[in-house]
């Protein structure tokens, strides 16, 4: 095997990347180029400058290939890059928490992938993330093994280092796999809103870049005229229905694109691996001992059809950050039982998933209503004032009264979502209505407590207990819990930490 010889020397990305950079840069400049072509020869110079700019970008992209090298040596992974400013990024292997392998459509045609290495550093800048764009899939697999499988065999292979690890074909256990019927959950994710938004945004960009006035396009004008001709009630019912249908369809397409072939497996070395994607694919490997818990999330619409999704709480995987966005997803929107089953498997016990949450009591309920009023009342008052000043018709504030019952329903549902529990060394906190979340955080992942009390919380004896952690969202809150209960939970979760600062009412009198 040449692995040993290779692993110590500097390695380069795949040469096919020389091909990707020009295409990508041209693609990025495409709206501008199209605009230049369509707008004709306005000044004559614009097109030239556009081409020169694109040419420079292509050159930089090509240079990037020549200047980027990486190696895994001496318990470290190093990346050298930069054209004018040379950088060497060094990360110790025991800091590597996750490896994310993704491939865009262009990458896949050429058999290339992009590797992002997640470390435990919480305050790093997005720029310095360890990212290698354009490796062959085989190289990426080998790199992943080098980065993540080192921990386990290191001790075992210590007696005989000349023997390579025997597990050439890793044994893996399947935890969850996408079933075709899950696509029915697609419309309830509302991801289509985003898709439709992106399409509209792109259309708008094309229009503004090409200086085409849509009002002068025949079909648009004709369609608009027809819309004005139909009875108004039909338009009022039809247009929203059409919109719902379009968004629903787009959501389903989006669902298939992102989650096609979803598979969650546990590898032999104790790592979790999520792979998914139809055109652009993504494989995230999470070191399971870095997993600090899981978050069950049920957006309102998904909750109505008993669906849920599961997100990992792991060090090195921040929720919703840049390219790592979506990297922590363990189970895509699907049947709730499936997400719960996987959560129980990953947490090692069903109790944290099934345990009933202790409600936060009438004071927390009252606070939900007062906070609702604090938002709705000024809004209605403002509309009434505007009506009295003859700036708005009366129906504006009359309609806004509807917000009161809707808001009250949401407030009550938010209260029902509130809760907490501590079972089997897992802190569980529930919250939210529009997106109901159940955080299940292992106590050994908690690295501190923040107890926050606003003026109004102090008056009612409530507090928000925040567990800080190096994983996931970095902080998980038990909202509006009676202070005493918060302290009891915190004391039980991390025994000893709070003890010197606690006192009972009895000892206070001494």
């Amino acid at each position, binding site marked *: 095997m040449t692995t040993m010889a290779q692993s110590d020397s500097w390695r380069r990305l795949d040469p096919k990347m020389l091909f990707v950079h020009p295409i990508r840069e041209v693609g990025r400049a495409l709206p501008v180029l199209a605009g230049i072509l369509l707008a004709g020869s306005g000044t004559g110079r614009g097109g030239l400058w556009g081409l020169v700019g694109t040419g420079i970008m292509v050159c930089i992209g090509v240079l990037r290939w020549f200047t980027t090298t990486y190696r895994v040596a001496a318990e470290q992974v190093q990346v050298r890059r930069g054209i004018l400013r040379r950088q060497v990024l060094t990360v110790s292997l025991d800091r590597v928490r996750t490896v994310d392998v993704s491939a865009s459509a262009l990458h896949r045609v050429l058999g290339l992938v992009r590797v992002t290495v997640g470390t435990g550093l919480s305050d790093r800048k997005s720029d310095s993330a360890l990212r290698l764009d354009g490796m062959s899939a085989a190289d990426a697999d080998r790199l992943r093994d080098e980065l993540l499988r080192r921990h386990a065999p290191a001790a075992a292979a210590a007696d005989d280092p000349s023997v390579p690890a025997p597990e050439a074909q890793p044994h893996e256990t399947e935890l969850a796999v996408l079933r075709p019927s899950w696509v029915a959950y697609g419309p309830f994710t509302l991801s289509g809103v985003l898709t439709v938004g992106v399409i509209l945004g792109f259309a708008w960009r094309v229009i503004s870049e090409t200086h085409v006035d849509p009002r002068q396009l025949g079909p648009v004008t004709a369609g608009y005229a027809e819309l004005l001709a139909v009875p108004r009630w039909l338009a009022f019912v039809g247009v929203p229905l059409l919109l719902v249908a379009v968004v629903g369809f787009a959501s389903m397409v989006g669902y298939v694109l992102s989650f096609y072939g979803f598979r969650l497996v546990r590898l032999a070395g104790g790592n979790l691996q999520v792979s998914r994607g139809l055109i652009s694919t993504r494989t995230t490997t999470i070191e399971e001992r870095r997993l600090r818990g899981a978050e069950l999330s049920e957006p309102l619409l998904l909750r109505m059809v008993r669906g849920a999704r599961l997100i990992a709480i792991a060090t090195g995987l*921040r929720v919703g950050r840049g390219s790592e966005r979506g990297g922590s997803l363990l189970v895509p929107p699907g049947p709730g039982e499936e997400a719960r089953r996987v959560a129980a498997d990953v947490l090692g016990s069903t109790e944290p998933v099934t345990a009933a949450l202790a409600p936060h009591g009438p004071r927390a309920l009252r606070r939900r209503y007062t906070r609702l009023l604090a938002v709705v009342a000024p809004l209605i008052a403002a509309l009434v004032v505007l009506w009295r000043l003859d700036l708005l018709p009366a129906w504006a504030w009359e309609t806004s009264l509807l917000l009161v019952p809707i808001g009250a329903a949401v407030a009550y549902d938010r209260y029902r979502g509130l809760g907490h529990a501590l079972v089997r060394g897992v802190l569980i906190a529930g919250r939210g209505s529009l997106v109901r979340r159940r955080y299940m955080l292992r106590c050994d992942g908690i690295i501190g407590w923040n107890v926050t009390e606003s003026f109004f919380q102090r008056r009612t004896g409530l507090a928000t207990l925040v567990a800080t952690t190096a994983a996931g969202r970095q902080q998980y809150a038990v909202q509006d819990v009676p202070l005493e209960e918060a302290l009891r939970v915190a004391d039980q979760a991390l025994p000893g930490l709070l003890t010197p600062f606690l006192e009972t009412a009895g000892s206070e009198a001494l």
Partner: protein
Amino acid sequence: MTETLTDAAPRHLRLRPPQHLVSPRAIWYWTARALGGWLIVLAVQTFYLILASDDGLTSWHVAVLVATAVVAAAHLVVMPRWRFRVHRWEATPHAVYTQAGWFSQQRRIAPISRIQTVDTERGPIEQVFGLSNVTVTTASAAGPLKIHGLDRDDAQRLVDDLSIAIETTRGDAT
């Protein structure tokens, strides 16, 4: 107290405040810092009053200006003193414990074993009053503990103590 506490009786748990107050000079530091902000707001309003003196709304402008001045004065008197009573800190061999805020208050506790860095910093206004602030960070982006308005020597002593305590614990603090 006459009644005796048994195990069955509800025991009222309390989190006692941290032991140490910050330096009393911090009151003036907070006043100065807030004063800077208010002066900008008042200056903008005065400037506008002079510029737009002929739009017939002068009395409104003056009223708003006076109201702002009253609120500013109340804030400058109440906030620093309130803060001074709240802001407290304590470091034991096992944990750092801070309390901060005024209208809204936070108490933060971090075990020494999870601390990653201890920084001390002196801003320009703090220098005038001979104060320092100390920031204790953990591996969580949500977890920094900040102690504002410490006497310079107290801050240095705290940093030294914490540095020694951190050296004696090991692990990667995540």
